[in-house]
């Protein structure tokens, strides 16, 4: 279990945004064809649209999950005065959304290709990464909802958001999955 959260510790996600947790759910996030792996570098143009989320809940219960996407390095990693900047909140994601090939092992059987936009409720609309200065981390944190009838009011402002406080306020507890990617402003001219 520590092995799967080592990149999060190295990237200081655990510490800045969330606390040490035990991953219980496999989460895969795809921007069109690119999957978000810990610490991968994505261009802001590739992340303009909301990604697809695939969960595979091993416990088998009918759980629902909440996904939070934040940027702890706003506006600049060395001076994060707006830490964290909220990009996206999706609630009521079913435990096995998006289909998962690992369940059956027969790719032609798992035809249920349901995207998240239909299987989750977008509480805070998606805004793609637009880092002004430096290399920013964009962190996806998944929480398990305590009960299905779960009322969350969207936060008042996107800046100075705190994932910890958000989870504590709504009783979400520790995360069940987390991943992050890096992004930096695309320079106007690539070769100098």
């Amino acid at each position: 279990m520590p092995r799967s959260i080592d990149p999060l510790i190295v990237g200081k996600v655990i510490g800045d945004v969330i606390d040490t947790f035990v991953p219980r759910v496999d989460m895969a996030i795809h921007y069109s064809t690119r999957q978000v792996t810990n610490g991968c570098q994505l261009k802001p143009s590739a992340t303009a649209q909301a990604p697809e989320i695939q969960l595979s809940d091993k416990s088998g219960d009918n759980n629902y999950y909440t996904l939070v996407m934040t940027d702890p390095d706003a506006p600049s990693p060395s001076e994060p005065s707006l830490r964290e900047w909220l990009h996206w909140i999706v609630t009521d994601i079913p435990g096995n959304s998006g289909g998962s090939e690992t369940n059956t092992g027969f790719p032609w059987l798992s035809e249920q290709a349901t995207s998240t936009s239909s299987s989750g409720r977008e509480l805070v609309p998606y805004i793609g990464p637009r880092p002004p200065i430096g290399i920013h981390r964009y962190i996806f944190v998944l929480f398990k909802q305590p009960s299905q009838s779960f009322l969350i009011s969207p936060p008042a402002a996107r800046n100075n958001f705190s994932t910890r406080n958000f989870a504590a306020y709504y009783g979400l507890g520790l995360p069940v999955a987390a991943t992050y990617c890096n992004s930096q402003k695309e320079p106007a001219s690539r070769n100098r």
Partner: protein
Amino acid sequence: MAMAVTSAFSMAALNAALPSGVSSQSRSAGVSLHAATGVSVRRTASVVVRSMLTSTKAAGFQVFNGLRNENALQLRNGASFDVMGLGISNGSKWFAMRHGRKIHRLGRPADQRRALLRGLTTEILRHGRIKTTRARATAMRKYVDHMITLAKGGSPHQRRQALGFLYDKQLVHSLFAEVPERYGERNGGYTRIIRTMPRKGDNAPMAFIELV
């Protein structure tokens, strides 16, 4: 009595043997020999015999002193001194003061010095502000400014140069991403040194060095 006879004999033989130009000098030499002991007079007699044989060939022969070492006893004099002593004048290799020498040696050999400075610049670029001794802080300034200048340039070659100096690859990439915005208008002088209280263990003068 015997001395007088031998000296008279040698004088006449000397005058005949030596070349004409030098004869006056030899006469004076003979006079000085006359005042010497009997041993020296006999030595000159034997010399005279030899010179009689060779003088016929070497007409107009001048005495050559060029190769003779005038310091044959090898006494030490000021010209050969290059160590501390009373004989040093300007032009020797060693000076008692440090005028114009600009390298901060930091009490280490060259390889350790370079490693120390690389580590210190990595740390200040990572944390923004560190506390070290004053000597290290003043030594670091040049290298921190150099790294920031490379990042302001931003070309792939400069990035490679920075990667060769700093110990943290991810730090170099984040440096190159941030520095142009942060230090775009500032021309040089990217660090500030603030002196603080001495260290307790060895009373070393300490300083904070931070990125401006």
